[in-house]
C-alpha cells in the first residue's frame, strides 16, 4: 500500500474524531501483510460464511431512528459492536459459526417440525385435532397467547370465526351414512350416488367424491389462498383442512401442506423465505431484523426480503423504490441514461466507458457525473470524486413558486437517483467481474509455481468487497435523500460517503489491474481499509450520527 493511502486514512480519522480510534489501526494493519496471509489460509469456506453472517449482523442493525420506533427491536447494538473488532489480524473473521443475534437458516423440514410442535402444544391444551389447531393458530397469526386469550374468552365465537365450529362440535364427516343409493350431488346434479360415493365435512354438506376432487384441484390450482377454502356449499363457513384433502384428493396434499407451511412463515414476522430462485430455506431471527447470507449465496434483509440495504431503513427503501417506479418509464430511462451536454445541450446516452465524456457535437470535454469541464477535475483541483454533493446551483432558492419548488425537488431526486443508479450498475458489473475472478486466480497461480490456491484467494475477497462497497454506496444515496439536514449532519455524512467512493474506486482500479502489474499487498491492504471503512460508516449511522 502506498503512503498516500495511509495518508487518506489518517486524514479521515483526523477529520472525524468519532471514528478516529478505529481508523488509526489501519496503517498498522497495512504494515502486517504477512499476518494477513495466515488469516487467508485459515479462512476455510465455513468460517468465511460465518463471517459473512456475523459481519452483516453487527453492521446492519437498523439505524437508531428505526430502533426507536421498535422498542423491542435490536438488542443488537452490543453484539453489533463486537464485530468491529479492529485488531490488525482481523480475528473477528475467525470466530466459530455462531449467530449472536439468533439469526439462523433452517431447512423447510425443520420449519415444518417447528410448526408441528406449536400445533401439538395447542392440541394438548385444548383437546382438539391437529387440523383444527392449525386453522386456529393461523387465524391468530401463530400467536399462541392471542389464540388462548380469545379461546378462553369465548370458545364458540373463536371456533366459528375460524370456520371450525362443526369440526369440534359436530359428528365428524367422512362418507355420509344416509340411505344406500339415490344420493344427489349438488355440484354435478347427478342423483344416483351410493352413500360411499358421497363425502361431507362435519357441516354435513355432502357432494360426490368426483366433485370434491374437482373442487380441491381447482382451489389448490388457485394458489396459496387454497388454505382458506371453505365447504363447497354456498355460504358455509366450514374451512377445509389437510384431513379433507387427504381423504378425498391425496394427490394435491403435498401442495396443500406446502402452502400451509408457506403461510406459517409468511405470517411470522421473525422469519422469511429466502427469496433466492428455487431456494427453500427459511431465515429466522429473534429480533426480526438483520441481514443473512443463505447457503444458496443470496443475501437479504430479514425484515423486507430485499438485498441488504444499510444504511437505509426498510420503510425508507420501500418509499424510494416506489418513487423510482412511479416516475414514468420513459422519463426514467431518459433521466437515468442520458444527459445534456453542458455546452450545446444535445442529449447524450452513455452506454459504456469512463466518465470522461467528449460531446460528438461540440467536442466539449466534461465529467459525466457532475457535468463540469473535464479539465477542472483531477487530484490537483480537489479531486475527481468531488462530485457527490448536491447543490441546486443556478436556481434562486428563494423562488417559492410551485413550479420552482417542483423543479428543485425533481432536481434533488434526480441527483440522488443518478448516483444510486450509477452505483447499482457498478455493482452489477462487479458481480460479473466476480464470475471471471476464478479464471484470473488460476492464471495468477499458474504464473508462479510457488503460489498456492489460498495465496490467490485475495482476489476473490477483493471483488466481493467491491460488490459490498457498491451496494452500500448505492444505498447511501437513498439514505441521504431522506436524511434531514440539521447541525451539518448531511455535510458530514456526504464527506464520509465521498471518502468511501474514493476508496472504492481505488479498490476497483487495483483489483481490475493486469495480473502482471498487480501488487498483491496493495490489493489486500486496500480490501481491509475499505472493509473497515464501510463498517465504520454503517456504525456511525447506526449510532445516530452523533459526534460525541
Amino acid at each position, binding site marked *: 500500500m502506498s503512503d498516500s493511502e495511509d495518508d487518506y486514512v489518517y486524514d479521515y480519522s483526523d477529520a472525524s474524531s468519532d471514528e478516529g480510534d478505529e481508523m488509526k489501526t489501519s496503517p498498522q494493519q497495512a504494515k502486517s501483510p504477512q499476518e494477513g496471509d495466515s488469516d487467508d489460509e485459515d479462512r476455510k469456506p465455513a468460517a468465511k460464511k460465518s463471517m459473512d453472517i456475523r459481519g452483516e449482523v453487527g453492521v446492519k442493525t437498523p439505524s437508531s431512528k428505526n430502533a426507536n420506533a421498535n422498542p423491542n427491536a435490536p438488542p443488537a447494538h452490543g453484539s453489533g459492536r463486537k464485530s468491529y473488532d479492529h485488531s490488525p489480524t482481523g480475528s473477528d473473521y475467525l470466530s466459530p459459526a455462531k449467530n449472536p443475534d439468533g439469526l439462523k437458516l433452517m431447512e423447510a423440514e425443520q420449519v415444518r417440525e417447528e410448526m408441528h410442535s406449536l400445533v401439538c402444544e395447542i392440541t394438548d391444551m385444548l383437546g382438539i385435532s391437529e387440523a383444527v389447531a392449525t386453522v386456529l393458530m393461523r387465524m391468530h397469526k401463530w400467536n399462541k397467547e392471542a389464540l388462548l386469550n380469545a379461546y378462553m374468552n369465548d370458545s364458540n365465537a373463536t371456533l366459528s370465526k375460524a370456520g371450525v365450529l362443526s369440526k369440534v362440535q359436530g359428528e365428524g364427516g367422512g362418507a355420509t351414512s344416509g340411505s344406500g343409493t339415490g344420493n344427489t350431488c*349438488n*355440484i*354435478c*346434479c*347427478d342423483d344416483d350416488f351410493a352413500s360411499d360415493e358421497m363425502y361431507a365435512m362435519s357441516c354435513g*354438506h355432502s*357432494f360426490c367424491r*368426483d*366433485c370434491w376432487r*374437482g*373442487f380441491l*384441484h*381447482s*382451489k389448490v390450482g388457485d394458489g396459496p389462498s387454497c388454505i382458506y377454502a371453505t365447504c*363447497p*356449499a*354456498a*355460504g*358455509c363457513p366450514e374451512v377445509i383442512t389437510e384431513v379433507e384433502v387427504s381423504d378425498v384428493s391425496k394427490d394435491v396434499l403435498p401442495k396443500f401442506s406446502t402452502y400451509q407451511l408457506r403461510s406459517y412463515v409468511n405470517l411470522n414476522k421473525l422469519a422469511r423465505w429466502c427469496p433466492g430462485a428455487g431456494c427453500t430455506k427459511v431465515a429466522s431471527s429473534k429480533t426480526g431484523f438483520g441481514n443473512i447470507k443463505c447457503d444458496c449465496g443470496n443475501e437479504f434483509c430479514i425484515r423486507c426480503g430485499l438485498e441488504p440495504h444499510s444504511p437505509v431503513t426498510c420503510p425508507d427503501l420501500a418509499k424510494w423504490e416506489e418513487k423510482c417506479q412511479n416516475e414514468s418509464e420513459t422519463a426514467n430511462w431518459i433521466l437515468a441514461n442520458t444527459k445534456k451536454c453542458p455546452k450545446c445541450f444535445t442529449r447524450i446516452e452513455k452506454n459504456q466507458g469512463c466518465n470522461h465524456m467528449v460531446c460528438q457535437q461540440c467536442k466539449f470535454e466534461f465529467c459525466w457525473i457532475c457535468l463540469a469541464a473535464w479539465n477542472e477535475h483531477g487530484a490537483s483541483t480537489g479531486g475527481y470524486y468531488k462530485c457527490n454533493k448536491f447543490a441546486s446551483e443556478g436556481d434562486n432558492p428563494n423562488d417559492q413558486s410551485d413550479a420552482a419548488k417542483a423543479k428543485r425537488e425533481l432536481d434533488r431526486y434526480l441527483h440522488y437517483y443518478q448516483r444510486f443508479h450509477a452505483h447499482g450498475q457498478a455493482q452489477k458489473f462487479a458481480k460479473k467481474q466476480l464470475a471471471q475472478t476464478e479464471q484470473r486466480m488460476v492464471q495468477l497461480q499458474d504464473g508462479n509455481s510457488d503460489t498456492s490456491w489460498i495465496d490467490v484467494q485475495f482476489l476473490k475477497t477483493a471483488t466481493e468487497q467491491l460488490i459490498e462497497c457498491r451496494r452500500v454506496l448505492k444505498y447511501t444515496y437513498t439514505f441521504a435523500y431522506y436524511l434531514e439536514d440539521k447541525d451539518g449532519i448531511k455535510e458530514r455524512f456526504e464527506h464520509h460517503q465521498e471518502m468511501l467512493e474514493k476508496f472504492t474506486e481505488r479498490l476497483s482500479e487495483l483489483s481490475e489491474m493486469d495480473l502482471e502489474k498487480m501488487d498483491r499487498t496493495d490489493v489486500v491492504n486496500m480490501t481491509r481499509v475499505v472493509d473497515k471503512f464501510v463498517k465504520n460508516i454503517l456504525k456511525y449511522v447506526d449510532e445516530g450520527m452523533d459526534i460525541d
Partner: protein
Amino acid sequence: MTSKTRIIKELKECSPTNGSGVHAEPNNSSDVFNLTGVITGGTETPYEGGVWYIEIKIPEGYPFEPPKMRFITKIWHPNISSVTGAICLDILKDQWSPALTIKTALLSLQALLCAAEPDDPQDAVVAKMYKEDPDLFAKTAKEWTAKHADPNVNEGKIRNLMEMGFEREAVEKVLKEVGWEEDKAVEKLLGGM
C-alpha cells in the same frame, strides 16, 4: 361428469317458461358455453317494466369457477358499470360456490337491482349519485330503463329494422348483441352482408 352435462341440465331449469323472472339460453344451440341471460326489473323499483340482457360466458373450470357475466343492456346502477356493463357482485367472484347455478346467479343479479350496495361500487359516479341525491338517481335509473330496457321500445326497434328488409330473427339476435342500440345494429347488419 363434465361441466357440459351440468350446463345442459341447468339450461332446462332456465327455460323462458320457468316462471322465476329470469331465464338463459345458448346464443347458438351447439355451443352451451356462451349464453344470454334475461332478467326483469322488480316492481316498485326504478327498474320496473325493464328487461335486461346479460352476456354469460361459462369458463372451462365451471362449476368450480364462477360464470362470467356482463350486462349487455345499459343500466343505471351503482354496482354495474354504466359504460361496460361489468358487474360487481361477490358470488360472481370470491364468494362463488360450485353448488350455485346460473339460475341462482341470475336471481342474485335480480336481487341486486332491488338492493344496491353503494359501498362496494362498480361505477363511482352512479354510486355517488345514489348516496348523495337519491331522487335524481331514481329519476336517471328510470330514464335509462325506459330508454334502453323497455320491451315495447325494443319491439319498435325490431320493427324499424325489419322495415329495412331484415329477417326478424337476425334483427333480434343483432340487437341483443349490441345492447339494443339501433344504429349499432344497423351497422352490424349491413356490415355482415
